[in-house]
């Protein structure tokens, strides 16, 4: 889920009951995306059902959780991997709770299959609280202004740097250099890493490239093999995504934009 979608809300979202409410799909989309992650959704359900976090009725909560996921799917909201993972976890806990306990084993609360989840939820809630306080502080702080420039400031029009900026700048320099030398490289026999760089550049420039186009532009068998291996490498590195919009359709190579990463893992 992209950050942009959650910009407007701090705290628990106001969400009507799952399916069948008469809001439009668009409204649902906005509201559902407020669930930052599976833990948020779970906390919301726990609050809505007015149950204790220390004694979660797993069957009921799991059922509701799955219902929300199916609403998200119905509305064609990409359900991120972590939501599915949590669904699996809930189902697993549910089935472990159904197992008859060994009557001879000492009754031990530490055995409760829900423990880890409860711990995670509590931790999550704590950091949400802290995030809230930070938000308030930043609001107050943002209302206090520093003095305007005075004459002595004028001799300092430059930018301050951190090590990360230094690195970013280095990457930019390299990218620039790569763009200039790319034409020369194209004429020579390419190496695998050059081919990868070329594919990356192509995808970065146009956002998406048809795999078929890449292959048909190859001038030798060796180059076709390089493209193929290069693509595999890029997919492995999670630098690009391969998308096929319809069965037997074109395979598209797409860049992984920042805000897509979360949704696709």
């Amino acid at each position, binding site marked *: 889920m992209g950050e942009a979608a959650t910009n407007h809300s701090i705290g628990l979202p106001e969400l009507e009951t799952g399916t069948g409410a008469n809001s439009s799909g668009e409204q649902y989309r906005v509201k559902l995306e407020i669930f930052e992650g599976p833990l948020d959704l779970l906390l919301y359900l726990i609050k809505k059902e007015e149950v204790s976090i220390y004694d979660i009725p797993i069957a009921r909560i799991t059922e509701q959780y799955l219902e929300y996921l199916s609403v998200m799917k119905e509305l064609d909201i990409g359900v991120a991997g972590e939501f599915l993972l949590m669904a699996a976890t809930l189902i697993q806990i549910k089935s472990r709770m159904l197992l008859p306990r060994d009557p001879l084993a000492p009754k031990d609360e530490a055995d409760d299959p829900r423990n880890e989840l409860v711990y995670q939820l509590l931790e999550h*809630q704590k950091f949400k609280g*802290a995030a809230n306080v*930070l938000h308030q502080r930043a609001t107050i702080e943002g209302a206090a*202004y520093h003095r305007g420039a005075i004459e002595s400031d004028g001799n300092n029009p430059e930018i301050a740097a951190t090590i990360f900026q230094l690195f970013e700048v280095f990457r930019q320099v390299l990218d620039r250099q790569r763009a200039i030398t790319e034409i020369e490289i194209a004429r020579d026999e390419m190496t695998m890493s050059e081919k990868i760089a070329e594919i990356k550049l192509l995808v970065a420039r146009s956002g998406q490239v048809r795999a078929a186009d890449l292959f048909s532009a190859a001038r030798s068998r060796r180059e076709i093999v390089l493209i193929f291996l290069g693509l595999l490498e890029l997919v492995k590195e999670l630098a690009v995504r391969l998308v096929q919009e319809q069965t037997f359709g074109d395979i598209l190579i797409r860049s992984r934009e920042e805000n897509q990463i979360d949704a696709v893992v």
Partner: protein
Amino acid sequence: MTTSELKPIIEALIFVSEEPLSVKQIAILLEDEAVENIEAAADELIEDIDARESGLSMRRIAGGYRLTTRPELSEYVRRLLKSQPSARLSLAALETLAVIAYKQPITIPEILEIRGKVSTSAVKTLLDRRLIVSKGHKQVVGRPMLYGTSKEFLIHFGLNDLSELPNLEDFEDLVSS
């Protein structure tokens, strides 16, 4: 120097400095005036300025002193500067920042573990805004990068140091109640 000699000097220095100015920096500028004297004068100055009912206030931020306008006058100042309140951090970024602030230094996989969610774009935003900085590599397999909060973080949230972060345990009651 006496406190009443020190106060105007400290006020002038803090006014001119672009960054919060620490007691130690002031001491060096004043040719090794005792740190305790400076601290006493600075604290008195904070009270003086408060009592003046002036448009300014002096505060301890990021280990130093800083002059700012009073928050309650922000409406007028904003009109003059035509400034938008600075871009807000998203909830994802704030929560990630909270995790980093309390658990620093911390790696991305460790953040994921706590948040139960992938936060790389949030981490990138925080780096871009310089609220967090890298703190070297963790000496484990893969040598992942460690992150911690920056001085900018303290300034942005008006904290003098990390000990001023609210106590995490205070937020536990929110759920149980």
